[in-house]
């Protein structure tokens, strides 16, 4: 049965991956009425690849400069009550859209997202991200959902109520994390956002440090920019304000302590045991990871990938700390959108 929804696929030079995305959309148990690929002035034939698969391809007159710009451009072509935004490097589990649809039976629901897992788990960065997602989506996001406030409706795959999306003027490029910006605007407008763990999507994660750095830079600056932009409004949203405050604390104070205090303590106390602090919560991380991996029958993969998580976490802390300093201390806001893969 065709769902009354349109999928927007923003794409800039995604010829290598967009076909997989389109095919996974076409293979959905609840296929969308329309698939619109926004070819954001690609130079690698992305539009041709998409067109060849029988989907609608639209092309803005000039490159919009961001994913948000391309998505908002695509939104003008949407004529269904629901809209799905999916990255051009992401494929969906066959029932992903079907799993999300029931959530929108409730009129206050503005957006819903699913579980995200890396499509490829080979390099250290992909493995680190694999563990991070297993941990976050099995534990943090579930708790957020139980309290009715997922921190973010993931930009790589989310479903929106078109009317409410348009009411928010679509996606904004004023921050580098347009998905977070949109999610928080929904909350402030009194709408609901939900997380559906059964709806699974598989993006391609950065496989090298350079690509990972680009993505982390965008995400970290995007988070700080959204906090700066929305902090007053967020104070009105129960649970979310606490979750954001805690996240902000961890991105600043905890990250600084994590990166600086442990080595200093180890030197001051002349005890290498202090450095165990970098790994001491490994069993804590392992519990949700193993729960998530067991459900997916990927326990060995998870165990093999666990060490990479600690590397990624440290890098993550560095980028968030840099972003906080740049955005809040030095006033150097980042606005150039760079793709992370």
């Amino acid at each position, binding site marked *: 049965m065709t769902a009354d929804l349109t999928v927007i696929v923003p794409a800039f030079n995604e010829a290598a991956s967009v076909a997989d995305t389109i095919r996974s959309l076409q293979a959905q148990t609840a296929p969308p009425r329309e698939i619109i690929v926004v070819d954001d002035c690609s130079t690698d034939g992305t539009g041709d690849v998409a067109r060849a698969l029988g989907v609608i391809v639209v092309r803005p007159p000039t490159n919009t400069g961001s994913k948000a710009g391309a998505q908002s451009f695509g939104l003008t072509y949407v004529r269904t009550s629901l809209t799905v935004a999916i990255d051009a490097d992401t494929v969906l589990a066959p029932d992903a859209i079907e799993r999300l649809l029931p959530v929108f039976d409730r009129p206050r629901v503005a957006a819903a997202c699913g579980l995200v897992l890396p499509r490829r788990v080979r390099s250290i960065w992909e493995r680190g991200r694999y563990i991070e997602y297993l941990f976050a989506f099995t534990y943090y996001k579930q708790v957020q959902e139980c309290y009715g406030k997922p921190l973010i409706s993931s930009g790589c795959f989310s479903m929106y109520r078109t009317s409410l999306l348009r009411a928010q003027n679509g996606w904004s490029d004023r921050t580098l994390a347009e998905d977070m910006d949109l999610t928080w605007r929904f909350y402030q407008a009194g709408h609901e956002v939900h997380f559906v763990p059964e709806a699974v999507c598989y993006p391609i994660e950065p496989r090298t440090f350079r690509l990972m750095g680009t993505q982390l830079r965008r995400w970290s600056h995007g988070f700080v920019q959204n906090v700066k932009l929305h902090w007053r409004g967020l104070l009105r949203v129960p649970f979310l304000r606490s979750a954001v405050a805690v*996240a902000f604390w961890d991105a600043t104070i905890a990250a600084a302590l994590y990166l600086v205090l442990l080595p200093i303590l180890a030197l001051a106390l002349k005890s290498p045991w202090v450095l165990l602090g970098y790994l001491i919560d490994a069993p*804590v991380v392992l519990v949700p990871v193993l729960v998530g991996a067991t459900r997916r029958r990927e326990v060995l993969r998870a165990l093999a990938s666990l060490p990479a998580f600690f590397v990624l976490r440290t890098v993550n802390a560095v980028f968030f700390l840099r972003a906080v300093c740049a955005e809040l201390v030095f006033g150097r806001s980042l606005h150039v959108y760079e793709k992370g893969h």
Partner: protein
Amino acid sequence: MTVGVPGTGIGGMFYLVSALAMPLRQAYRSLRRRPSAGWRIVAGQTAMAGAILAAIWVTGWLVGIAITASAAFIAPPPLLGAHPGNVLRTAALVLSAATLAAVLLGVELLRLWVHRGTGRAATAGEAGSRQQIRRVAALVLLALAADGTHTVAAQHTRALARRLARADSAFAAGDATTAAREYAAALTVDPENSRATYRLADLTKRRDPVEALRLFRRYVTLEPSDAWGYMAVGDALARSESYGDALRSYDDALRLAPDERDAVIGRARVLARAGRTDAAVAGYRHWLDANPSDAEAWGELGRQRLRQGRDRDAALAFEHAQAIAPDPTVARRLAVARAAAAAAITPLASGTHDSDGNTTLRLGGTGELASWGPMRLGLTASRTAIGGDGVTTTGRQDLTLGAAWRPGAAWQVQASGGASRLDAALGRSATILPTGQLRARWRVPGAGPIVDLRARRDVLDATPLLAANRVLRTELGATVELPIARVFKLRGIGRTVALSDSAEVNHRTTLAGMLAVHVTPSVEVSAQFHTIRFAHPTTAGYFAPRLVQVAQAGSYLEFETARGILLVFDIGAGVQRVAEQGAAIGPWGRALRLYSLIVVPLAVGRDLRLEFDGEQSAFANEVATPGGAQWRYVSATMSLRWALN
């Protein structure tokens, strides 16, 4: 996107508390028929939170084991010690929870401040609804915080209660091994259980004093307002002879409990143990002024008075103790103190003999008056017969008035003055010569430096020739002992002696240095080096080489048997070389010496004292005889002190 440092930070605590709170929230929403996540998801997340808590505990436990196992290779963290048990500290969890609470509270305060104006615009219904939500949220948070804490605490409490019950039973039954094991096990369940920490330390203090001290210090950290913890630390430090730290710990205890007997008396005991007898006496007296019915304190004061040399005061203290609570041990000490303080007579007999055939025999006695405060007076009279080569004989009579004064435990002053009458010999008529001695000894309390000053004037009488020549020895000497480390002492001796007779005055200078090591409190070994110089040769009858050098290993041993017999031995063995006047120094030769003292208490107040002294060397340091290649000398003295009480 996952913000911050997932897994660590207060984010972990926030989601843990939130997950543990979910059942209550779910119950509330179900009762209110509001949309909710469903019990299956809630149960799953709560179980995951429980598993995370367990993982935290297991991690702490495993890290503790790793630290213990690798303590020999990697120094354990200073704050945890070599056997930290579970390194997960309640304090760390509390700190993390407090940080989280502070952040959340800060957000709420910020919200109230930022939106303080908008609240007035809200309708009454909205305001009421918000208030209700806030109340419920607060209750839920509180309940869940309590629930989370209670869940963990309950598990710990049950395991802990079992361990403690077993440990207490074993402790009460006197089974120290089992009790120690169970208390140690209790500490693995709850590393911050203060009672188990204290008891385990108490049970460990004899077997492993270092570990006991660590545990007592840990107890103080856990119970900083408990004076007994500081006292226990003080006692443990005193056992390891860290008296300064021990006293500081007792000072902490006294700040918390200034009138507590155990603190006051305990501090006095540490002072006594440290050798600070005067301060210990002051401590006991301070306590007894306010608590005169404390028999034990009177008894301990009596012992310290004896160490001070204040025998009469000691006897008075023991009398107080006996009057309050008769005790056979105190009764015995009382008798000893009374005998020591009483008037006494001491007959004595002594004799000397050397390898040249010189012999002396001395008979005499001393009469002492009863002690008067720190002062004691006595009169000594003796007759000495001096013979040599079996033909020449002479004699001397001595009469000396002596006084001993102990102004405090640190000071000892002895003075005596009198005269010696030398018989007519070798054409000289009988002569009376004044003699005397003054000795002052000062010891810095608490095993500190010692200064011993001595001046004396007496007659050399080892041979008939010396006696006939009326050789007088006038000596000034000083001994300084410096503790340079815990068991090492440096001792220096300097003496200058004028040896005068009717024809000349000669001078002898002695310098000596020694390094002494206290192997035990009653055993000392030392390495010594002495140099002795005479100004010029003499014909007065004593050996006056240009230079004598002595290198010797010495040992001093002091024992007391169960019957109270005191045995003292001072043994020296080494080499000696002598340079005659105008000659080069000779070869090294053997030098041996032995001094022993045996005091046998025949009854209370009746002590038999035996002294033996022997030397085998070319030059005798003290007796100054003509000497020889392997000259030998022995002396023996026997005296019996008979108290007249």
